[in-house]
């Protein structure tokens, strides 16, 4: 927004191309100012402003969706199909996350700050996806990270503080790695723009190239929570509040995966190293280790945390074949949207009963509320990839694209992992579904109603859970429509 004075009109027009991002920024700034002058019990106004800003941003992104791809601000900011998908998905997910957090944040002394930070993080996420320049990528990395450190420890309790510290140290370390990577790429080519990199990198010295590729991928891998830079995921997810965990494990991943997708399609597309194989190995490790680690979790947050690690593995499959098949972009579009909805839904189920940490507590707490259980089953089976949910269509598209891109072994591994993942999702589904409720006039003796723990039920998360379950099924059934919109032709 600090445009150079020269070329004011041109810059003004270019700034308008960033209207969705500007709306998010406006929402963040406006929300902050409004929050300062709003009494504690009226903070819902800030929430409304922030949600409206998100929705307006998504709408603005949808309006310009079918415009031809452009690169603005000296080709650093790419506006194309990938950016458009991320803009819409992130803005809507941020709105959902703010709504989801509202029940635990309402009345909190720093309520406004939380919403503003969430919006800024979303802005950074979109910047990650839209980066067409390594320096912007680094800036976006920081913008997508720093607000999240604050959010992770927002409750200021011991576990939250520990989570923040771990998250921050790991983020700082990987950030340095990433900057080393960027530096080597600059050393090798003398430029930071993706189009120039794409032409110059194939002739670059192999050592510099290798350091550069690994460093930059480490950065986006960290934001995505991929193996081997995933160690923060379980601790942060379990340490922070469920609503914040939903935000942290959903939003930055979307932008990071899209950024990796763009990196592989553009600057790393023609390099002499086998970058797709490297990404394929990252994908294989993420899904396998994520699943293995999730097997024995009894804490619902940790279980979901490892599940998100394995989900990143499936997402990175499509990154590995970016630019190698026409099926990659539709696969990314549907999987990102499906993952965002379903993951938010699953965390909303956790947030609905904040006192229930373990699977059995959760099952006991939710026992009376049959529809919550039904929605949870839809979300968890959705994460497995059971039809007709959105993630099923996503997985189908991702598997197809990956095989078409020449990585059939990865498809087989992913299929085996999907079966393995079913096991731990069922460890949650089975007790939840088995807890008896007493249907009216059903004729049971009703002796099983032993619900004692966690009677506190939060409304906003329950609503979010139901909406996510319905949206997951609708997006699956209507995936043709979504794809027709986001991937025309």
């Amino acid at each position: 927004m600090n445009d150079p004075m020269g070329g004011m009109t041109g810059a003004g027009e270019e700034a308008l191309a960033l209207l969705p991002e500007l709306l998010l920024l406006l929402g963040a700034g406006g929300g902050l100012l409004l929050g300062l002058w709003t009494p504690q019990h009226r903070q819902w106004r800030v929430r409304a402003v922030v949600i409206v800003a998100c929705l307006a941003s998504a709408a603005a992104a949808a309006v310009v969706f079918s415009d031809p791809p452009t690169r603005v601000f000296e080709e650093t900011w790419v506006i194309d199909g990938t950016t458009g998908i991320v803009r819409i998905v992130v803005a809507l997910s941020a709105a959902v996350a703010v709504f989801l957090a509202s029940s635990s944040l309402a009345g909190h002394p720093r309520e406004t700050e939380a919403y503003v930070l969430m919006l800024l993080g979303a802005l950074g996420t979109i910047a990650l996806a839209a980066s067409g320049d390594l320096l912007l990528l680094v800036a976006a990395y920081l913008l997508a990270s720093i607000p999240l450190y604050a959010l992770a420890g927002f409750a200021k309790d011991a576990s939250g503080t520990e989570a923040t510290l771990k998250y921050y140290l790991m983020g700082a370390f990987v950030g340095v790695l990433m900057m080393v990577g960027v530096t080597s790429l600059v050393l090798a080519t003398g430029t930071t723009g993706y189009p120039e990199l794409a032409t110059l990198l194939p002739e670059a010295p192999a050592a510099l190239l290798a350091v550069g590729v690994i460093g930059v991928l480490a950065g986006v891998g960290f934001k995505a929570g991929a193996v081997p830079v995933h160690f923060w995921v379980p601790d942060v997810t379990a340490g922070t509040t469920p609503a914040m965990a939903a935000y942290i494990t959903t939003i930055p991943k979307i932008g990071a995966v899209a950024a990796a997708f763009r990196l592989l399609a553009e600057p790393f597309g023609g390099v002499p190293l086998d970058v797709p194989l490297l990404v394929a190995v990252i994908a294989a490790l993420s899904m396998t280790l994520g699943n293995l680690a999730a097997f024995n979790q009894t804490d619902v947050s940790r279980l979901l945390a490892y599940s998100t690690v394995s989900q990143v593995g499936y997402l990175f499959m499509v990154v590995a074949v970016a630019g190698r098949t026409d099926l990659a972009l539709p696969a990314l579009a549907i999987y990102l949207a499906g993952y965002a909805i379903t993951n938010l839904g699953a965390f909303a189920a956790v947030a609905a009963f904040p006192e229930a940490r373990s699977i059995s507590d959760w099952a006991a707490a939710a026992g009376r509320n049959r529809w919550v259980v039904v929605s949870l089953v839809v979300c968890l089976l959705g994460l497995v990839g059971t039809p007709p949910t959105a993630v099923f269509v996503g997985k189908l598209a991702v598997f197809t694209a990956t095989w078409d891109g020449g990585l059939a072994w990865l498809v087989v591994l992913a299929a085996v992992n999907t079966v393995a993942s079913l096991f731990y999702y069922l460890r949650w589904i089975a007790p939840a579904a088995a807890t008896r409720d007493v249907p009216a006039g059903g004729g049971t003796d009703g002796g099983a109603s032993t619900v004692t723990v966690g009677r506190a039920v939060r409304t906003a998360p329950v609503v979010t859970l139901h909406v996510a379950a319905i949206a997951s099924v609708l997006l699956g059934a209507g995936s043709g429509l979504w794809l027709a919109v986001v991937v025309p032709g």
Partner: protein
Amino acid sequence: MLLTVVVLLPLAAAALLLAVPALAGRAAIWVWIAASAADLALVAWMWWRYDPGRGATGVVGNLAYEVDLQWIPTVDAGYHIGVDGLSLPLLALTGVLFLACAVWSLREPDRPRTQAALFLFLQTACLGTFAALDLILFFVFFDLTIVGMYFVIAGWGHGNARRSALKFFLYTFLGSLALLVGFIGLFLGSEERTFDMVALAENPPLTDSPLAGGLVLLAIGLGLAVKTPLFPFHTWLPDAHTDAPAAGSAILAGILLKLGTYGFVRIAMPILPDAWQRWAMVVVVVGTISVLWGAFVALAQTDVKRMIAYTSVNHMGYVLLGLGAAGLVGQADEEARTIATVGALYQMVSHGLLTGALFLLSGVLWSRGQTYAFDHWGGLARPAPVFAALLAVAAFGSLGLPGFASFIAEFQIFTGALQAAPVATVLAVTGILVTAGLFLVALQRLLTGPTAVPSLPDGSSPDDQAAAAAPSSSPTQDGATATAVRPRTATGMRDVHGAELAAVVPLLALAVLLGLFPRALLDVIEPAAAAVAQLVAR
């Protein structure tokens, strides 16, 4: 449009049941019966209006009630459904069996509303799988049957129900993902990049690459073999059956196993003719091993329900023997291969009816004595003559006595397969002998001798099954086992009555009718079977 209504009507009824809490208890079951009956009536209407045609038709053309809508255009997957001679008999079987289960469940005391909704959901999934003409649509419904059956077993089963349900889910889900991988292979191997079964069967993919074709057939075959189930992928079956409720077992054996064999006829054979021919002998061998393995292991069982479960492995082995023989193009003429295919399709229908009846009858044992163990029962012919008669009829039908549908089926399979695979056929015929022996032994143990009936429900039975009876007096903390108060019966065998009779008798009557007047079904099956036999010979 009519077909869409047939497929979705049960789902709509399920939604109605869940949405209206007033429909509880007996009313819920009546809604279920009404929905199933209406659905069966619609299927009957479809059958009435269906013109099977002459010669070889179906599979790639002359599909009735066809609907083709775009769903995911980027991969050309669509909502494509239709009916031909392969699917119509199985749609009708689904309608009949679900109605029988609905009637059977009239006295269901345990959460009847949820159960009815779940079964209706399952019915939509089964009908959808049989009607689907698109690989992805097929997969969607195929997977949903697994989910539905998981909750049936986990929620209403007895014994170690949760473990069995988990085993069932994991095994069959593994199979379904192998199937998905195979489908993606078909998609990528096809020239026009489509998931449409009709288009793929018209222009088979991967004909010029035997290795890729073989691997894709392996993936699809693996997926379907787990579901069917074939030796050595059958190990989930006995546990799932033993712990499932009677109606769930009937559906699992009667319909869900057919999804596997139906997949072979509908997908593997017409779409991968080249690979099917090349590997047909393997199919024959696996089928024969399943026949013998199922028969001999069934012989050794001490539990009625496990025994019936293993005979399913045996019966599905016959189907695979017939389908494999249909692929041995070099060794047999087209007529023999068509007969083998017809026999395989006939066997699917007859097995559905007879095994459905057998499992429902074994449910009578559970409701009276909460055990399936042979040594707890004896001499039931005296206190329960109707039960004894029905069980005898079902057992004789199942062992393939002339006059029953299964005889027509097995006779045709053997006739068709003899020319192409004489050794395997002769071996498989001995399977009939073993089955006959085991059913006779079972009848002898249960029906003759001095009357023995387990005491109920707190009779200190040393059997582990007694664990299942405990929760009715002390509900467990997590509510894992049924908490229903079962209707107390006097110690003594109450004969089959009312709803039970109304559920079982039509199944057996149909099995007899199809055995005496096979033309009605053959007229529908034969053109499609001929088409499959021709397509596989390409």
